[in-house]
C-alpha cells in the first residue's frame, strides 16, 4: 500500500502520470458540485449577516431585549428613545460630520482620482494615497493623537475627529473614483475640444457624467465610513461624542439604557441600509447602462 502510494507520488513528480494528473484536475474543476457549494456558502454568509440584524430589530420590540425572547411585544423602548434626549446630539454630530466628510471625500477623491491616470508614473502616488487602508485603526488613532495632542499640544474636538475620518475614508473614496477614472478614455475629451467645448464644458458634459457613479460612491462611502467610525474617534474625540461613541459607551456600561440602544440601532439601520442600496444601484446598475 505504502509502496503503491510512493510509486504514485514519484510517477507524478516525474511526469509519467502527467496525463492522469491533468485529467484529475480537470475532473475536479468540472465537478458539478461547485455550483452547489457556491450557492450554499453564499446563502450561509447572507443568513449570518441578516439574521442578527433582523433579530436586533425584532428584539427592539421585545419587553426584555436581553432575555432573547421576542414576547411580549412593546414599543416602550421607542417611546423611551423619543423621550430621551441624550442621543440626539451625538446623532446630529455624526450626521453633520458624515455629510462634511462625504462632501470633502467626494471633491478630493475626484480631483486626485482624475489626476492619477494622467500621470506618467502613478505608482508612487497611488501607493502613498492608498496605504492608509492597511494601517490598523488603533495605530492610526494613536499616532494622530500623539501628533496632534502631545506633540502639537492642540485641543482636540470635532476638527480632529474630522481629520481622522478623512484619513480613514479618503482612500476608499479614491479607490471608487479610480475604478472608473482609470477606464475613462481621455480621447473623448480631445473629441469634445475638437467639437468646440471649453475645458470646463468638456469636464462637465463628458468627464463628470461618465465618472459620476464613482464620484457619488466616493461621497456615500465617505459619509458611511465617517458615520460608523469608532476606533479613531476614541482617541481624537476630545470632549465630543459621536453616535458610535455614544452607542459604545452605552452598550459597554450595562445600564438601563440598553433597551434604548436596540431601538436606536434599528433606527440607524433603517436609514443606512437603504442608503447602501442606493449606492450600489448607482455604482453598478447605472454604470452598466452607460457603457
Amino acid at each position: 500500500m505504502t509502496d503503491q502510494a510512493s510509486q504514485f507520488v514519484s510517477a507524478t513528480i516525474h511526469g509519467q502520470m502527467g496525463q492522469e494528473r491533468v485529467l484529475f484536475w480537470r475532473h475536479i474543476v468540472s465537478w458539478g458540485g461547485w455550483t452547489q457549494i457556491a450557492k450554499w456558502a453564499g446563502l450561509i454568509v447572507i443568513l449570518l449577516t441578516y439574521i442578527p440584524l433582523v433579530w436586533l430589530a425584532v428584539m427592539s420590540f421585545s419587553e426584555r431585549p436581553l432575555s432573547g425572547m421576542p414576547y411580549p411585544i412593546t414599543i416602550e423602548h421607542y417611546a423611551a428613545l423619543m423621550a430621551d434626549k441624550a442621543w440626539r446630539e451625538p446623532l446630529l454630530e455624526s450626521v453633520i460630520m458624515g455629510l462634511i466628510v462625504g462632501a470633502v471625500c467626494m471633491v478630493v477623491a475626484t480631483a486626485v482620482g482624475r489626476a492619477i491616470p494622467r500621470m506618467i508614473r502613478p505608482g508612487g502616488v497611488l501607493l502613498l494615497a492608498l496605504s492608509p487602508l492597511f494601517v490598523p485603526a488603533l495605530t492610526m488613532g494613536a499616532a494622530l493623537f500623539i501628533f496632534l495632542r502631545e506633540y502639537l499640544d492642540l485641543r482636540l474636538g470635532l476638527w480632529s475627529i474630522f481629520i481622522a475620518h478623512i484619513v480613514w475614508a479618503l482612500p476608499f473614496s479614491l479607490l471608487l473614483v479610480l475604478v472608473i477614472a482609470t477606464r475613462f478614455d481621455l480621447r473623448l475629451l480631445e473629441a469634445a475640444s475638437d467639437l468646440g467645448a471649453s475645458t470646463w464644458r468638456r469636464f462637465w458634459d463628458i468627464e463628470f457624467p461618465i465618472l459620476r457613479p464613482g464620484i457619488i460612491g466616493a461621497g456615500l462611502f465617505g459619509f458611511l465610513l465617517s458615520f460608523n467610525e469608532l476606533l479613531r474617534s476614541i482617541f481624537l474625540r476630545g470632549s465630543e461624542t459621536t453616535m458610535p461613541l455614544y452607542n459604545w459607551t452605552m452598550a459597554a456600561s450595562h445600564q438601563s439604557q440598553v433597551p434604548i440602544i436596540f431601538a436606536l440601532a434599528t433606527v440607524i439601520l433603517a436609514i443606512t441600509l437603504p442608503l447602501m442600496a442606493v449606492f450600489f444601484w448607482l455604482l453598478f446598475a447605472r454604470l452598466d447602462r452607460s457603457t
Partner: protein
Amino acid sequence: MTEQNNADSFGSSGPILEIRDVTHRFGEVVAVDNISIQAQQGEFLTILGESGSGKTTLLRVISGLETPSTLGALRIAGEDVSNTPASDRNCTTVFQHYALFPHMAVGENVAYGLKVRGVPLGEREERSRDALELVRLGDKYDRRVHQLSGGERQRVALARALVTRPAILLLDEPLGALDEKLRLDMQVELLELHSKLGMTFVYITHSQEEALTMSDRVILMRQGQIVQEGPPRDLFDRPASRFVADFMGVENLLNGVVLESNGEITTVRMGEHTVKGRWSGKTTPVPDQPICVCVRAERVKFAEGSGDEPNRISCKPGATIYKGKYLDQTLETDVGMVNARIWDGDFSLDTVSHVWWHENDCVIVPSDKSSESVN
C-alpha cells in the same frame, strides 16, 4: 508672397488651409519635420503614409490637439489660428476610434458641437437629424451608441463632425477599423458627401488604394517629411523615387544604372540587358547613377522565341498564385524576380521564354540613397 498675404487678409480667395514650416518633436523623435502644406476650398486632400510617418501628428497640429514645437504659420480660412485652442478652430475631426460619447444617445452625440455653440434646442435637433439623414442614419437618432455597429458608429462620428459646418473636415484614417466591404462602400459615400457639401476634406490614410480612389491631391509622407505630392495619377504613374513607387504598389522594382538620357526617355543597364523607360526623378539623370526600374505587374507582357519587342528579358516561369480575378505569376530572370499578372485563366506559360514591356509602361527613378540625399 505679398499677393498671398493680401488675399489672406480678405479671407476669401486664399487657400482654406495653409501651414508653413511646421515641426513637431516628441522628445528626440521628429514626428513632423519642417512641412508646409496648402489646401484649396473644396479640395479633397489626402495625406498618405505608413504608420509613424507623422501624418496623424500633422492632422492633430491642424486641429489644435497638438501644439507644434515650431510653427511658421497656420491659417484656416485666412484666419491665423496658430495660437487658437482646438475648441475655437473652424475644423472638426473624424477620429479613427470614433470617440463617440458613450453616455449620450446618437442624437445627443451629433448635437454636441451645436450645444456648446449655444444653438437653441429646436434648431439643434433639426440640424442633427439632417446630419444623420445625410449619413443615412435618420432612424437612429434615439439609439444608444453601444447599440450601433462599427460602420454605423463611423457614420455617427462623421455626422457629428459635419453638423457644425466646419471650413475643413479632418478625417484620421476613418475607415481603418471597418471591414473590406464596408470600407469600399464608405469610400463611395465619403466621395458623394464631399461633392454634395463642397467642404474641404483633409484625409489621412495608409492605404494607397483609398488615396487613389478619393483624392483630388495626395501628399505622401515619410519620416515626417513630404516625399511627393500631386494628383493621384501623378503618384501612381510618375513616382519620383523608389520609396514612392514601392508605396504606390509597383510590383517590379529592379536595380540598374543610367547609360544615357534625353531628359525623358532614359536608357539604363540592368546586368546584361539594356532597358528604356521614362525618367521620373526630381533631378536630371547622370550616367552611372544607380536607378530603379519600376514596372507594374499588369504591364509585363510575355513573348516566345525570338522577337523585336522592347525591353526583352529572357525568363523561366516560377510560382503561380491564384487571386480570383487574375493569377499572380512570378518569373525568374537574371536581373531578379519579375511579377506578371495573367488575366486569362486558360493562358499557358509553356512556350513563354521572355518578358517585355513598353517603355511608356516603365518608370525609372533614382534608387533610394540618391533620392534621400536630394531630400
